[in-house]
């Protein structure tokens, strides 16, 4: 997640990181990381990331918040995260729209 302001909304934080902020802490799948004041509407990005152990890398006005390395694995849960990307026509596509089908997601590159 890349942010340009010190504070963002809770919804933006949740969408950007995939972690839900609840009274008990930051939660994803079966994992909850206890952090103070997790349920407010406005989130101090760096303070929250630091409390969760998420890496923060900065460049001038940009702050990149990376994923959680606390479990030693990329996936914390087998539930597929939402993936929202554009097709060539600029139309938004959500992975969750394929619920009810088996999905093979293939990553490729033109290089």
């Amino acid at each position, binding site marked *: 997640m890349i942010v340009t302001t010190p504070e963002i909304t809770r919804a933006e934080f949740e969408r950007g990181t995939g972690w839900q902020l609840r009274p008990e802490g930051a939660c994803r799948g079966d994992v909850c990381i206890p952090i103070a004041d997790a349920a407010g509407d406005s989130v101090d990005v760096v303070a929250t990331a630091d409390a969760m*152990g998420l890496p923060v890398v900065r*460049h001038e006005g940009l702050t990149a918040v990376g994923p959680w390395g606390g479990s030693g*694995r990329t*996936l914390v849960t087998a539930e*597929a995260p939402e993936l929202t990307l554009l097709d060539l026509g600029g139309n938004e596509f959500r992975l969750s729209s394929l619920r009810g*089908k*088996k999905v093979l997601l*293939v990553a490729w*590159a033109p290089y």
Partner: protein
Amino acid sequence: MWQELRAELHPLGLEVVTVGLDTAGAEACRPFIEAAQPSHPSLTDQQHAVAELFGVINIPNGVWIDENGIIVRPAETAPAPRREERAAAGDMGELPERMVEIFTEAQKIRSDPQAYEAALRDWVANGADSPFALSPAEVIERSQPRDDEAARGQAHFELATHLHAVGKHDAGVEHFRAAHELVPTNFSYKRQAWSLEPGPDGPLQRFWQGPSEGADWPYAGDWLTDVREFGAENYYAEWRP
């Protein structure tokens, strides 16, 4: 490359979604997508979201997700089905020396498209009863390792792609370098960064991925050096059924 298989398996309940990973953006992916004329969703992923979310570290990579939105195979090498004999290297006399060397190394890269396709068919036919559909615990356990260093590498990479995309290429290079240092086994981080540097004009430019005349090379490694050091035979981890 997946279109034919998709056409056959789609009536049986499979959908294919392709994701083009390129910081250079949708326009870099366009010629390939348009040539394939897919009937399935074909998306572009400039920020490498699938790396952060699913643990894609090289391409081609595949993830299997069942009808309930549960991952049953985490990101792993997904070789495209071979529909005809792989064309022989042919006349490479016209190619620059470096490309000849790259193709020669690439020939040593190993994968098993038949095994992967057979597993996919088995899953489409048998669903949760397929031995290739893994339990949630196995999916998590087999997902790419990610410790704090690798997580920081991902943050650097994300920042680098953003900086390049907004025209701050040199600043981006510093963060690509940091990502390479933190996660040296992630060839996606390397190849993406290398592919954005100057190379010979034409269709090979994105594949040059190394020093070229008249331009400074800002990276510690390059495709040939790194693949030789890593061992082309190790480029893809051996597929685990």
